[in-house]
């Protein structure tokens, strides 16, 4: 509910809002990711709940001013819990005509449109495919509150006295835009000012220029006659504690370092750069003093096989990649599976097949991760629900790997990886320890049996160098207990079943499936991965509107929680929204014979809350 009051000496109106969605968009060189990130930081530090969605262009650097080069960053900040970066945009900042053209459709009616008027000149207009200047055409933008601001020239004037080159001066215009939006939403710019001072510590002229541009933008908001209203969003009531902002990739890196520290082990990361997984490598390579070894391998295959080697030699070993890279790792994962060695393989999914949509999100690797190895080779699969959840699920993946002596797959996606949200910094004492035991018996005349099993069907993990436990492992089928090569038909049947049962048995050691909403009813919505926020919000709204609907979000995909079949039976219908053409749906249908229907979207974009809500209503009303 919005409230208004008149405040401030300059008589501007301050309106209070619950949640706001802002999108910065411009050319990929305009610093829009930076503007978005800084706005997120100041909002998070202020105490709002935040959720972000960066949108990178697929081209590394499309020609400036073209539609293909538009980069965007959307933030939702709120005084209550939020789970998504929002459906519709309240305020759109467009730095050029291409950005306006590609983004204006998402701006809600009556929303604020701030444009860099200077950029709307002939060549930019034609690059964006405009025949005439849309800013001159009152009708096309009539639905919005348009603020035409000559940001380039105002920025140039603001920094004029510093003697920067025209190019350097104009590069500060993103700070002007930030300043203006900071005024509009009454943000305290201090964290951004501190960031600028430390970021450009070695270039004092850039510190001054960016700060001047930021303040000029802020002051423009105060003084200009055109802007009469600004807005306030109060801090959110999050559970008490200390918070910071994390992206999914950061949280994955933190989760693995934590797992290694808890286990008292070295962390080995073998990886090959690929969007959107590379940041995990970047984060971990900074953390060498945490006893982390990172190995940038020559290719994806070397990355996974180095992990196999490191795991064999006793490290907690992980690799991360995205779809095409995971495809290449298939054989190495199979090797890890037959040798029964612990390791975690992270798939940060993106649009496919092949190179597909490298910078856009999708959930279409589920089949590959579930089935994409030769032979009968089930592996445990877990999937975080949000950026902050990556911290927990990375530890869960490692715990399962070590306890059950198996490779484990962790399915993230581009939306989670690059998105950010507040993360409650955990108390170290609250973290679940990870126990690692290595077989280390001294030679006593008895032969060591590398495939002897414990109650979880896990075989012993021996660090080479341990006397008396010398043994050989490999990709050929092994005889149980002795680990000797054995191709006999009965043995292969026995070992295939044993490995499958071992993975299925993990169900006894993971949490049962919970539902949000009524325990039985008309409809159960099942989701997994990064669609959590949109589905959770859509279900909440639908319940409020009186519909009989509940939500089960799966974080354990193989094995499924053991009560999942019973949970499904409690509802008349099942809806499975996924950013693919129905992969979980087929697996659920196949596993539980449930007549699930799908909501499927493969546009490289996350679900809107409204899309899910509409589908829920349709399914319940059987339209």
């Amino acid at each position: 509910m919005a409230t208004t009051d008149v405040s401030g000496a300059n008589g501007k109106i301050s309106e209070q809002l619950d949640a706001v969605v802002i999108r910065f968009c411009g050319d990929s060189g305009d610093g829009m990711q930076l503007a978005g990130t800084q706005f997120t930081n100041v909002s998070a530090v202020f105490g709002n709940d935040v959720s972000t969605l960066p949108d990178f262009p697929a081209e590394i650097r499309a020609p400036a001013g073209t539609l293909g080069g538009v980069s965007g960053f959307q933030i939702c900040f709120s005084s209550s819990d939020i789970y998504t970066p929002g459906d519709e945009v309240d305020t759109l900042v467009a730095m050029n005509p291409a950005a306006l053209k590609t983004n204006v459709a998402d701006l809600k009616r009556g929303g604020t449109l701030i444009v860099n008027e200077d950029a709307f000149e002939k060549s930019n207009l034609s690059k964006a495919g405009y025949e005439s200047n849309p800013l001159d055409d009152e009708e096309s933008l009539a639905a919005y509150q348009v603020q035409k601001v000559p940001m380039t020239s105002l920025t140039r004037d603001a920094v004029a006295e510093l003697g920067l080159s025209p190019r350097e001066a104009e590069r500060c215009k993103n700070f002007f835009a930030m300043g203006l939006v900071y005024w509009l939403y009454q943000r305290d710019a201090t964290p951004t000012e501190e960031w600028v001072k430390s970021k450009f510590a070695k270039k004092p002229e850039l510190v001054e220029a960016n700060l001047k541009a930021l303040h000029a933008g802020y002051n423009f908001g105060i003084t200009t006659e055109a802007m009469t209203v600004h807005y306030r969003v109060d801090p959110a009531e999050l559970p008490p504690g200390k918070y910071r902002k994390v992206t999914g990739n950061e949280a994955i890196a933190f989760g693995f370092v934590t797992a290694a520290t808890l286990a008292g082990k070295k962390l080995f990361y073998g990886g090959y750069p690929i969007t959107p997984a590379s940041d995990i490598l970047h984060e971990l390579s900074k953390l060498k003093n945490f006893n982390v070894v990172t190995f940038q391998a020559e290719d994806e295959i070397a990355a996974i096989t180095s992990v196999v080697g490191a795991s064999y030699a006793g490290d907690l070993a992980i690799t991360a990649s995205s779809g095409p890279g995971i495809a290449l790792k298939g054989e190495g994962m199979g090797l890890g599976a037959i040798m029964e060695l612990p390791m975690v393989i992270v798939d940060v999914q993106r649009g496919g097949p092949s190179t597909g949509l490298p910078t856009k999100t999708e959930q279409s690797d589920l089949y590959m991760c579930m089935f994409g190895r030769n032979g009968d080779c089930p592996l445990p699969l877990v999937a975080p629900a949000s950026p902050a959840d990556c911290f927990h699920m990375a530890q869960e993946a490692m715990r399962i790997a070590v306890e059950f002596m198996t490779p484990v797959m962790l399915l993230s996606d581009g939306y989670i990886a690059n998105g950010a949200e507040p993360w409650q910094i955990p108390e170290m004492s609250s973290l679940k320890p990870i126990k690692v035991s290595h077989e280390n018996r001294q030679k006593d005349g008895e032969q060591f049996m590398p495939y002897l099993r414990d109650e979880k069907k896990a075989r012993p993990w021996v660090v080479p160098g341990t006397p008396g436990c010398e043994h050989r492992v490999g990709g050929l089928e092994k005889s149980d207990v002795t680990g000797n090569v054995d191709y006999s038909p009965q043995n292969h049947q026995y070992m295939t079943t044993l490995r499958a049962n071992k993975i299925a048995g993990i169900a006894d050691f993971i949490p049962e499936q919970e539902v949000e909403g009524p325990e039985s009813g008309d409809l159960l919505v099942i989701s997994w991965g990064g669609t959590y926020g949109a589905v959770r919000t859509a279900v909440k709204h639908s319940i409020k509107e009186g519909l009989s609907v509940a939500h089960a979000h799966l974080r354990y995909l193989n094995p499924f929680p053991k009560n999942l079949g019973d949970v499904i039976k409690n509802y008349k219908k099942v809806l499975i929204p996924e950013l693919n053409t129905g992969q979980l749906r087929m697996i659920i249908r196949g596993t539980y014979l449930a007549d699930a229907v799908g909501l499927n979207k493969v546009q490289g974009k996350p679900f809107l809350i409204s899309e899910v809500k509409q589908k829920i209503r349709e399914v319940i009303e059987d339209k």
Partner: protein
Amino acid sequence: MSVDTSLPVLSPKDFASDQEIRWCPRCGDYSILAQMKKVLPTLGIPKEKFVFVSGIGCSSRFPYYMDTYGMHSIHGRAPAVATGVKLANPDLQVWVITGDGDSLSIGGNHFMHVLRRNVDVKVILFNNQIYGLTKGQYSPTSPTGTKTKSTPFGSVDRPLNPLSVAIGARATFAARSVDVDIKHLCNVLERAANHKGTAFVEVYQDCNVFNSGAFAFASKKGEKEENVIYLEHGKPLIFGKDRDKGIRLNSHDQPEVVELGKGVTEDDLLFHDEKSEDMNLAFLLASMRYPEMPEPMGVFRCVEHPTYNEAVYDQVKSATERNGEGDLEALFNTGDTWTV
């Protein structure tokens, strides 16, 4: 009471596993296995510190036959697996066992990178110029025109020279020997074991089933003396049954065979320098191929450079000295935080 802290004295037998060896009778692999078992006990390294990693192929069954730690991995990837093993546990002595198809076809990429990084592992390439395990197709070292099941009209590929590839990747140790040349092979394996950095050894290996006699020129008594030349550091390149021939550089700096005497003295010959930082000599030696030239056997190149694993741990150490031991709480609390 005194405690005996000396290492147990090991013998070749201690390195023999209980697994039945399934190579074809008279396969050259038996000899390489036997020489390896002879060399390892002489190194003063406890048995449990050895790890043998292999790829796929006949040679790659090798780890099963050694009573050490071992992994029979997947096609061509043994160098990457071994890199992971060595990085995880630098105390281990890691050997890679591979064949010409395994290392130069499917694993060409990893072969090149383990060498250029100088990871402290020993790579033994069993070269028989044929695919034995898949029953006789030509390999990347088979001479052009090789007739096999997959090349009934003769192969049209140009072969790779493993030593040229290794030297091109800046191998810090590169050597060659022959399976049946027992003493020479032992010596080369021992030197590889003692090298700090990636040691590359090509072993000419006889596949008597699919490519019998491919290296007869280098193994047959009475003939090999005329066809191979044994490299010794600091010594002139002399060969022949009567040690009456040598290698000299001609006016184009190309090697040529000359007869000693008749105005040519030892001082006119090319002298071997395995420690040369410049790789030209090693390249030149690798380019000498039978039948045009006698083929060199022995250590082509042996130079000292920092190893990859050392460099990795130096960074871990200096990062820890600079930033202190990792503190999760401090890490989580970096950047902007707020309290609710």
